[in-house]
């Protein structure tokens, strides 16, 4: 492990109150993100993978301060940004971070031209003159493959295809050259042939601009191609964390194993063996202090019902939160 750490998240939690009334305080909480720890180095991509409702999007939004965290600490470029009060700090933080959303049909304002959309971060940050902004917009549009850029500047989103819109959304996120970007399922709405184009484009840009990425996806195959490290989430908790190839080839947590075995393989001759797990995913409302996978786990033991497993390092930067594994990598009998 070397290199500058851009983002460090310690014990991050975000709870949502379940029912609010004017006169009573909330009694039940949805533990959307519970005690998350990870860090991202400069130029690296970490992928958060999990099923819908596991808290991956909430994690991304909490880090970017679109939600106020319930607990924990977020350090960005060595500065504590957990709670930002001063306008100046906020401005600094938001000029260095950006988000790319899932649906390019909803994330672009239909009443604005492409120029206005891409230049908006610069307007908010009061950056440069109009001439300079125009040059920068042209520059980034060309870079994301919208060419010729001057033909698109004054068009509206409805004149663009889905792939072009997502390119514009990427251009908007990258025009200020952020240090850190959260990408929330940026390719899941796109068609197969367009998806690969956009994935490749993002990988090139990450390398070229030496950015750090938090890449949120439900698709392990996409995560494998995009990310250096993959972290698997289940009901608000991180259950496994490893380098991408290590996680795909050597999954340890029973949930990760099930997830990997459930991914369809584009090869009709390959017969998958699926790991059977019981039931469906629930909601982490006031969860009991036990392993959250307990109800569905085929290997559930007595201890799993009594306390929550912590993430333990089993070597080679591979961490897993499961009582089946001990620190040295040996399986508990």
């Amino acid at each position, binding site marked *: 492990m070397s290199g500058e750490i851009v983002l460090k998240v310690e014990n991050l939690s975000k709870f949502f109150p379940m029912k609010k009334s004017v006169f009573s305080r909330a009694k039940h909480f949805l533990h959307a993100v519970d005690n998350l720890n990870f860090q991202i180095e400069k130029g690296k991509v970490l992928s958060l993978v999990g099923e819908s409702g596991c808290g991956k999007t909430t994690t991304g939004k909490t880090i970017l301060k679109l939600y106020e965290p319930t607990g924990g600490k977020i350090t960005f470029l060595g500065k504590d940004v957990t709670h930002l009060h001063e306008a100046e700090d906020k401005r600094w933080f938001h000029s260095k971070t950006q988000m790319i959303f899932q649906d390019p049909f909803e994330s672009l304002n239909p009443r604005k031209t492409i120029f206005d959309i891409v230049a908006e971060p610069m307007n908010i940050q009061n950056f440069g003159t109009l001439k300079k902004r125009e040059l920068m917009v042209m520059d980034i549009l060309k870079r994301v493959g919208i060419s010729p850029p001057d033909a698109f500047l004054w068009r509206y989103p409805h004149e663009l295809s889905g792939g072009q819109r997502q390119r514009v959304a990427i251009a908007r996120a990258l025009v200020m050259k952020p240090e850190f970007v959260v990408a929330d399922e940026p390719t899941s709405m796109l068609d197969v042939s367009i998806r690969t184009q956009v994935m490749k484009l993002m990988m090139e840009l990450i390398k070229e601009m030496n950015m750090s990425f938090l890449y949120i996806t*439900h698709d392990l195959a996409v995560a494998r*191609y995009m990310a250096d490290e993959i972290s698997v989430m289940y009901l608000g908790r991180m259950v496994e964390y490893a380098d991408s190839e290590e996680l795909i080839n050597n999954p340890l947590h029973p949930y990760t194993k099930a997830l990997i075995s459930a991914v369809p393989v*584009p*090869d009709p001759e390959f017969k998958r063996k699926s790991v059977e797990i019981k039931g469906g995913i629930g909601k982490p409302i006031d969860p009991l202090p036990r392993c959250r996978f307990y109800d569905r786990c085929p290997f559930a033991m007595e201890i799993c019902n009594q306390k929550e497993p912590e993430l333990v390092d089993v070597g080679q930067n591979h961490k897993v939160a499961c009582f089946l594994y001990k620190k040295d990598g040996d399986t508990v009998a």
Partner: protein
Amino acid sequence: MKAVLEVKNLKMYYDTQAGQVKAADNISFSLYEGESMGLVGESGCGKTSVSMSIMRLLPENARIISGNIFFGGKDIVKISNEDMNKVRWAGISMIFQAAMNSLNPVYRVGDQIIEAITTHEPNVTFEEARQRVASLYKLVGLDPERMDNYPHEYSGGMKQRAVIAMSLACNPKLIIADEPTTALDVIVQDTILRELEKIQKKLNMSMIYISHDIAVIAEVASKIAIMYAGKIVEMSDSITIFKRPAHPYTVGLMSSFPSIRGPKKELVTIPGEPPNLLNAPDHCRFAPRCPFATDECWKKEPSYEEIENNHFVACFHPQNLKKQVRNNVG
């Protein structure tokens, strides 16, 4: 084997203010008893238009210009609406895209399936229908006691199972599943696909799976048709399609799909975007994106031909063929 469904030169166009959209152009395929076919393509390529033509559930501005659809020996393009109503559900049923939204939220799930049964089979009493629903629930892996629940009390996967149960309600010969698992998580998707495959084998039904996801199709279909811009560009059994794809679009599609098995391969991108089907060009529709395109491809449309046994391709420059076959063709 007997063909359950035979589609011949089907042309379905939409009339819009801007002009004619050739959503399905010269589609031909046949489907045998107990066979499952995958229809693969990107959005807007006409997959759903084909299935809606088969069900005759077309919007007002859509017209079947020419072609035949034979189901059980009858051409269902020509029959009256009343006769078509009898074919729907009892003969051909459908699992719709976003199935979770196709249940009515204010009726009990069981009652909605009973309604489907009693509409098509007026002789069946309510009690008999209820019993049939209970056995259908068991078949798709649902607890029959949940029949009297409302849709909002079901999870996404359970709704999907209920919709599958509904599609089976009148013992159809053919089920069209339009993106049956797209909105589901991988683990649920896996169980649903396995369930569907099991039921299909058990009841010896024919299935058409429609999907953009070639990995899903690889798992469930024995025969695959690849659609591009309103046309079937390639069709064969699934092993041939995956091992020796001939159309450059299929080749591109295969190598642009990330997989979690095997060594990490470099992904290949197909440049450009699918064409607008409004006033579609009369040359090969893939030519602008094709690495093998020659002058010929820009002059006329390639015909859809059998290049080897049971392997149909519409391309002037088919790839990956055995040598002798290539000599025969060119």
